[in-house]
C-alpha cells in the first residue's frame, strides 16, 4: 500500500503560499493604513440551533473569539397572531394566546382574559381570582424549570435537564387534568374559566408543592456552588440598573440588576398584595444573578401557591352575566331566555363596549402587557401583546459585545426568551 499524499489547499489563504509560508503581498491598496485590530470574521448562529431556544438567528462579527457586533434576526416563527385576532371574536382569541408562550400558557390565557375583562368592566368571582393566581404561579414554576434545564445544558451541565423535566412532566399532568391539554391549555374565557378545577386536583397540586422543593434543593447542590457553573455565569453579561431600565428589561432580568420592579407588587392585581411573598433582587445583573433570582422566584411561587390553596373559596367560577358566559346546558335546553343567550353568544360572540385597556401582569419572563381596543363589536379593532421576551432580546447585542463567543450562548440562555412570543 502506497502512502497517500494529501495536499492542503493552503493557497486559499491569501497570506500563505503553496508551501504554507506567508507571502509578502500587499494586502491593502497603496496609501491605506492597515487595520491593526486584525481581521474580523462573520459567523452565523441559527435559526436552527439548539442553543438559540427556538428559531433565533444571530449574526456575530468576531475579532478572534471576541464579539464585536451581534445582529439578531427574528421573525422565523411569525404567525401574525395579532392580525388573526382581528378576525376572531373575543373568546376565540384565547387559543392564540397560549401558542405565543407555550412555556407558560396559562399566564397568557389569564392575562388576555384580564385585559378584556378590565375593558368591559367585568369583575370576576373570588374563586376565579384565586384559581387564576394558582394558574399563573404554577406556570411561573413551569417556565422557570424549562429555563433552568435548558440553560444548564447550554453551558454543559446535562443532569439538571433531566431533573427539571421530570418535574415539568408533573405540571403537564396537572395542566391536562385541569384543561384537557398539556401545552395549548386555552383555559380562560371572558368572565371566568373554561371549567372549574376537577375533583382532587388541589390535593395533587398540594402533593406537587410538598415534593417539588426537594428537586430544587438537589439542583441547587448541583449548580449554585459549582465552580464550572460559577465560572460560566458570574460577571458574564452584566448590566447596571439604569441601563436595564432604559433598555426596557422587565421581570427576573431587571430584578437581577437590582431594580425591585415586580408588577405583582407595584400594580397588584387579583389581591396579590394580600399574599405573603418576597421579590428576590440581584445586585450585579449578570447571568449568575439572573439564575439566583429565578431559583428564588420558584420558591416564592410555591409559597404563594400554598396560600392560594388555603384560601381557595367555594362558589361559582364564572360571573353571573348572560352577556359573556354561556348558560348551563340544562337551562339552555329548558328555558327560553337562556336559549336566546346561548344562541346569541355562540353566533355573535361576546360584545365589548367601545374602549380600550392596557393591562399587564408579571409573566415568568417579564412584564406581559395586553392592549385591547374595541369599537363596540364582537371582534377587536386591535389586540396587541407586549411580549417581555421581545424587549428583553433586543438588549442582547448590548450584553454580548466584548464577550467571548461561548458567553453568547450563556447570555442568550440567561435571558429566558421564547421565540413563539417574540415572533408572534
Amino acid at each position, binding site marked *: 500500500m502506497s502512502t497517500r499524499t494529501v495536499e492542503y489547499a493552503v493557497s486559499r489563504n491569501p*497570506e500563505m503560499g503553496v508551501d504554507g509560508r506567508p507571502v509578502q503581498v500587499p494586502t491593502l491598496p497603496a496609501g491605506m493604513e*492597515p487595520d491593526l485590530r486584525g481581521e474580523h470574521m462573520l459567523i452565523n448562529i441559527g435559526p436552527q440551533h439548539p442553543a438559540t431556544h427556538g428559531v433565533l438567528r444571530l449574526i456575530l462579527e468576531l475579532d478572534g473569539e471576541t464579539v464585536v457586533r451581534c445582529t439578531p434576526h427574528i*421573525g422565523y416563527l411569525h404567525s401574525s397572531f395579532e*392580525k388573526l385576532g382581528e378576525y376572531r371574536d373575543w373568546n376565540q382569541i384565547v387559543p392564540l394566546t397560549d401558542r405565543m408562550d407555550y412555556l407558560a400558557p396559562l399566564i397568557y390565557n389569564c392575562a388576555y382574559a384580564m385585559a378584556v375583562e378590565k375593558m368591559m368592566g367585568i369583575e370576576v368571582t373570588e374563586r376565579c381570582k384565586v384559581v387564576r393566581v394558582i394558574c399563573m404561579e404554577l406556570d411561573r414554576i413551569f417556565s422557570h424549570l424549562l429555563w433552568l434545564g435548558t440553560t444548564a445544558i447550554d453551558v454543559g451541565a446535562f443532569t439538571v435537564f433531566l431533573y427539571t423535566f421530570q418535574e415539568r412532566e408533573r405540571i403537564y399532568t396537572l395542566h391536562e387534568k385541569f384543561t384537557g391539554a398539556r401545552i395549548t391549555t386555552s383555559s380562560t374565557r371572558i368572565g371566568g374559566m373554561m371549567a372549574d378545577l376537577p375533583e382532587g386536583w388541589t390535593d395533587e397540586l398540594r402533593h406537587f408543592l410538598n415534593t417539588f422543593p426537594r428537586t430544587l434543593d438537589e439542583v441547587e447542590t448541583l449548580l449554585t456552588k459549582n465552580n464550572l457553573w460559577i465560572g460560566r455565569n458570574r460577571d458574564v453579561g452584566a448590566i447596571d440598573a439604569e441601563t436595564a431600565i432604559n433598555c*426596557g428589561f*422587565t421581570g427576573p432580568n431587571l430584578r437581577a440588576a437590582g431594580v425591585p420592579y415586580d408588577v405583582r407588587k407595584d*400594580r397588584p392585581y387579583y389581591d396579590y398584595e394580600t399574599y405573603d411573598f418576597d421579590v428576590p433582587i440581584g445586585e450585579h445583573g449578570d447571568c449568575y444573578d439572573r439564575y439566583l433570582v429565578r431559583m428564588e422566584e420558584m420558591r416564592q411561587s410555591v409559597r404563594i401557591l400554598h396560600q392560594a390553596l388555603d384560601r381557595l373559596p367555594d362558589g361559582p367560577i364564572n360571573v353571573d352575566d348572560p352577556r359573556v358566559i354561556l348558560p348551563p346546558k340544562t337551562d339552555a335546553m329548558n328555558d327560553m331566555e337562556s336559549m336566546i343567550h346561548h344562541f346569541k353568544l355562540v353566533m355573535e360572540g361576546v360584545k365589548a363596549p*367601545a374602549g380600550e385597556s392596557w393591562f399587564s401582569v408579571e409573566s415568568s419572563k417579564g412584564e406581559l402587557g395586553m392592549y385591547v381596543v374595541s369599537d363596540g363589536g364582537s371582534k377587536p379593532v386591535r389586540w396587541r401583546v407586549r411580549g417581555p421576551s421581545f424587549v428583553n432580546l433586543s438588549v442582547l447585542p448590548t450584553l454580548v459585545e466584548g464577550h467571548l463567543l461561548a458567553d453568547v450562548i450563556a447570555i442568550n440562555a440567561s435571558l429566558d426568551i421564547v421565540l413563539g412570543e417574540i415572533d408572534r
Partner: protein
Amino acid sequence: MVDVSDTAMPSVEGGTVVAALRARFGDAILHHEVQAGDEHVVFILASRNVEILRWLKEDPDHRYDLLQDITGVDYGGGRPIQVVYQLWSITHRRSLRVKAELPLDALEIDSATTIWAAANWLEREAYDMFGVHFVGHPDLRRILMPDNYAEGHPLRKDFPLRGRFSRAEQTRRALDFSLEDFYTPADLELAGLRPHADALNPPAEGKDAGAAAAGDGEAADGAPDGASR
C-alpha cells in the same frame, strides 16, 4: 370612554401629570381621556412627541422611566393611525398612555430611540406592521417580516388577512431569495461575498481597511456562485 375636562379628574395621580403637561406644553396636548376606569390617555401633537416624552421621562416629579410599549392602532376607514406610547414610572408607580395621531398620507414621527433604548425594536415593529416611519431611528428595517417583503404592512386594516399575492406567488417569492435578503451589505462585505465599495475608491481614513482587504482576498479566490447575483 370618559372625556375629562381639566376640572374633574377621577384619579388624582393621573390628573396631575395631565395638568402639568398642559401647563408646560399648552397646545401640544390635544386632549385627554380616561379609559377602562383608571387609564389616562393623552393625545399629543405628533410633531412635538420627542420633546414631550423626554420631559415625561426626565422631570423629577413624573419620571416615566420605563417605556413599556410602542405600538400602532389602525381603526380603518381612512382614519389616522395612532402611535401609542405606554409609559410606567418605577419611582412613582404610575402609568400613562401617550398617543399621537398620524394621517395616512404622512406616516412620519420622530424616533424615541434617543430617549429610551427600548424604543429601538418596538419602533421597528411598528414600522414593519403599520408603515410608520420613525425619523432618526438608527436602524429602521423590517423586523418580523422578511426584508424583501413586498406586500405592505400587515396590521393595517387595508391589508387582506391572507396577503396581497396569491399563494403561488408567495411561494415563488419565498424560494427566489438572494443573499441580500438574509445579510446586510456590511455582513456580505465582511464575509468576503461582496467587494467593499471603498476598495475601488479608497477613503481618506483607513477605517474599513481590514474589511476591504478581506473582501479583496476572498473575492480574488472566487466567491460562491450565490454571491454573483
